[in-house]
């Protein structure tokens, strides 16, 4: 079983509100990915990190999305001003190294509902 811990499991926000979710990767995993899974099971890659450094990210929806993986603290993903279209399951995944990226260990996700 995966040891990636995501909190909270559920998040309900009004439009325009901030939404913040956290992820603790598996111990010893320096690589972290964030994905968005919508209700149609379409996945969107958001960002990935190696240690604290951003490796790749999409043009994060007019910069409303921000993420970080500080040293000795949980990683986080924040939406500055939530929109209805942001309602989705946000999945955090970690990997022991860049070369084995194909094996990702996922958390249970944070389900965001924007009312």
């Amino acid at each position, binding site marked *: 079983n995966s040891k990636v811990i995501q909190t909270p499991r559920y998040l309900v926000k009004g439009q325009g509100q901030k939404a913040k979710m956290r992820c603790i990767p598996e111990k010893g995993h320096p690589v972290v990915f964030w994905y968005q899974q919508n209700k*149609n099971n379409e996945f969107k890659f958001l960002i990935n990190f190696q240690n604290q450094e951003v490796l*790749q990210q999409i043009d994060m929806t007019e910069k409303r999305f921000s993420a970080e993986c500080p040293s000795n603290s949980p990683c986080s993903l924040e939406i500055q001003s939530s929109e209805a279209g942001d309602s989705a399951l946000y999945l955090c995944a970690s990997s022991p190294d860049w070369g084995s990226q194909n*094996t990702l260990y*996922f958390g249970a996700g944070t389900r965001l509902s924007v009312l």
Partner: protein
Amino acid sequence: TQTVSQSDAHVTVFEGDSVELRCNYSYGGSIYLSWYIQHHGRGLQFLLKYYSGNPVVQGVNGFEAEFSKSDSSFHLRKASVHWSDSAVYFCAVSAIDMGYKLTFGTGTSLLVDP
């Protein structure tokens, strides 16, 4: 650009039946192929992966998948399913020159009737 197609949105079988979940991809270069399972309300769990070598790879819980370059496929199989195998199964591809980002199919929902 990588694309992944899972042609069957839903598959229903009886417990003890064999099952094959289909995955086709399109990409011109060297790729990694993998399958993940998602039980209701949970995150994705890794099942198996292929990059090179023996085209038949074994995974957890009796699953295996076979890579076919000629068919651009990576179908998942299990000889005898259990009710607990009911879940959504996702095929995923990634490539070195795409920065290893996984591209997922839209999943196949497997329902195993007891």
